[in-house]
């Protein structure tokens, strides 16, 4: 087990170094940070000096070595644009993204599982067809379009929810939460639905097909033969057996929810890390971009690692295979 953990940690390190290297190669094509940092009246000499001070004239491998050297000490430099340490910026923006991602995941699970179960059991009812049509919309419409539609319906037309932002926030230690204020909760609704719709669709369809599969198995037939109530069969036996793959998928999707929050955050001006990243790209703010990409890579690696560990715990076959090898 220990050897497995160490090996995975080493692999994680390789993944992150690769991501950092790829990011650095890409940074050569994002444009000139200096022209985005200075005003139009800045003299040529000042521009040249700035380029020199930032080390932008150094070869890429030197810039990369400098970045990695600082990153292992958790120093990601100062944002070109905001002129604050990147670590502090990320710490400020992360709570907004995490809260949004969790709300979106909760929405996806809370609606997706019941819808999946229902459509699995009542395959031909009109309600099932409605659910599947809705989920088709969720899977085929682009996120920004869903976001704008929701804004126009609920903010402009009905005027019941705010069109942008995070509402009022309350600091708990370093964490600024929007979950404890009325305006914060109201502001969370539309972005969470926008971000979670695709995942909800995924969960619905996954649970549905798993249910269809499981309902055909012998032990369900046997349970029916024993005269158990429908309710106990559907939820106690069938659903429980579908949950292992569902939990795995949701766990893995959490990483992509955080990573793909970029679009939702831009549409709703949600002050999270994704919005920060988009702004950094527009201004060629290399320190912020580098740190964000590394963080997302780390999140994916971490989630995968945890899923692997859970697998080893719940599936004895993997353990035995490892020991044999």
């Amino acid at each position, binding site marked *: 087990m220990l050897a497995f953990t160490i090996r995975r940690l080493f692999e994680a390190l390789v993944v992150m170094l690769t991501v950092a290297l790829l990011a650095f190669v890409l940074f050569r094509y994002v444009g000139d940070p200096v022209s985005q940092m200075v005003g139009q009246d*800045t003299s040529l000499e000042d521009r040249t000096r700035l380029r020199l001070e930032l080390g932008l004239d150094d070869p890429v491998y030197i810039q990369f070595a400098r970045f990695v050297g600082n990153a292992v000490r958790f120093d990601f430099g100062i944002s070109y644009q905001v002129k604050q340490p990147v670590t502090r910026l990320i710490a400020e923006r992360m709570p907004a993204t995490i809260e949004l991602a969790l709300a979106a995941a909760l929405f996806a699970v809370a609606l997706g599982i019941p819808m999946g179960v229902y459509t699995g059991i009542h395959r031909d009812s009109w309600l099932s067809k409605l659910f599947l049509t809705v989920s088709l919309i969720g899977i085929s419409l682009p996120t920004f379009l869903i976001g704008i539609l929701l804004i126009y319906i609920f903010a*402009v037309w009905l005027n019941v929810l705010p069109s942008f932002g995070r509402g009022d926030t309350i600091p708990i230690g370093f964490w600024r939460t929007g979950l404890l204020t009325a305006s914060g909760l109201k502001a969370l609704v539309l972005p969470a639905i926008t971000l979670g719709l695709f995942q909800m669709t995924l969960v619905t369809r996954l649970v549905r097909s798993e249910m269809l599969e499981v309902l055909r198995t012998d032990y369900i037939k046997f349970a029916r033969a024993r005269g158990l109530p429908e309710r106990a069969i559907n939820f106690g036996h069938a659903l429980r057996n579908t949950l292992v793959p569902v939990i795995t998928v949701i766990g893995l999707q959490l990483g992509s929810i955080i990573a793909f929050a970029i679009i939702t955050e831009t549409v709703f001006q949600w002050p999270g890390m994704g919005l920060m990243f988009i702004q950094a790209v527009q201004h060629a703010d290399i320190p912020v971009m580098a740190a964000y990409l590394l963080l997302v890579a780390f999140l994916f690696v971490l989630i995968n690692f945890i899923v692997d560990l859970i697998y080893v715990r719940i599936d004895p076959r993997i353990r035995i295979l490892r020991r044999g090898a």
Partner: protein
Amino acid sequence: MKPRSAAIVGALALALSTAPAAAKTFRYAFQGDLNALDPYTLNETFTLGAIGNVMEGLTKRDKDLKIIPGLAERWEVIDPLTWRFHLRKGVKFHNGEDFTADDVLFSLARMRSPGSEIKSRAPADMKAVRIDDHTVDFILTSPNPILHAEWDTWYILSRKWAEANGATQAQAPSAVSLSPFALKANGTGPFEVVSHQPGVKTVFRPNPSWWGKVEHNLTEVIFQTIKSDSTRVAALLAGNIDMMDPVPVQDIDRVKSSPGTRALTGPELRTIFLNMDSFRGELLYSNIKGKNPFKDPRVRKAVYQAIDIDAIHTKIMRGMSANSALLISPLLFARASEFKRWPFDPAAAQKLLIEAGYPSGFEVEMDCPNDRYVNDEAICQAVVQMLARIGIKVKLNSMPKAKYFEKAGVAKKYDSSFNLLGWTPGSFDSWNVIENIIGCRNADGAGGLFNYGGYCNPKIKDLNKMILVETDAAKRNALIAEAFRINHDEAGVIPLHQQALVWGVSNKVDIVQRADNQILFYWVKMQ
């Protein structure tokens, strides 16, 4: 009426009469961020405008951009090399300190500190001499008629506050440690900053002891960034904000037709123009080898006359632009009306190309930003089609501004043959335009940093040296007109238009739209 119920009625009446006055919160949104509050670290209109509600310069500009007294109540030019400024007495900073000549001298030194982005506000060899607590002399080495043109955005900091907060130097753009003062502001202006979260939200409240005459009726101002165009429009229509800038051209009608909002439009100072590389001996990205067609004024004029500026005005800008024959807004140059555009005339353009020896045209690439100016990419696409009609085949490269300014600008040594650029002179004066846009430069940009085509006529440079020191307004304008005339005759740089300002405003709000696009809420009145 019993005394008790009378008291209740009285209290109710009081509550009703004070409640509306108590809550006058003006909420506005802009597409960009407000980052550091140090007014010397970013020379950008929106930032300087936002800080301009909190901090003040020796001069100010009124609703029509005329220079008016600010922290200096008056000034006089004693001789062409000595300007005397009389400072306003009894002015206090937000933290209660008195404003004196010391603060002006300190702010001048700080404006020249290495990290400052606003060094161009005053000549480097100008000296400041303190005469007494409320009088400062500025000593020049050569006459300068527009010395104080940009002093409305050279904000005065308190020396004591800056020393106490470690803010004696402007934070350099490349600084490796955070300046704690970048999130705070201590000025003399009509508003103070309550809280500031860069990129998210900034809250202001009125300064109760401001020296000036209060023209607003606000109790609080909230600024937020809303980057996405459609969300910004939706937020205004939904009543979540009271004002926003800019309204995308395609949404103007929606903002106008909504019952609670209106679109406030006006001319902006920025001029959009086209640069052709007339610097290199051989044109890059072209099928012409060994020579450069754009070096020939006839070819440049052919490009000029092939452009149907009215089509751009009506189809692309939907009327939200003013066609321009000059590289500066007519609001900023008294003799602008003397200039007329070369007429749109494809046949004449074709003839010019034949005379120049390119009867079947040539191929070239054009670089264009797609997120910098109003409909920048669409303008470039239209230009490409219009030039195709006279045989110039243009391949368009559209790119984000960070990439564009790198390629077409000094960073890659003007690696571009044909491009679109916009310019507002910070000083609101023609000298700045002539120097930066049509001043001769070398390959590294020395001479005219934003002359993206490298167009050069030494006569213009000579004229501009005279413009810099000429103090007689009529003579000075004649020199400026002469310089612009040369560019016009040779079609060195081709002006297109001044784009329009479009603000979305709630009908509850009465606001002044200044042509420099600063959002100044000390002129906002709310119902």
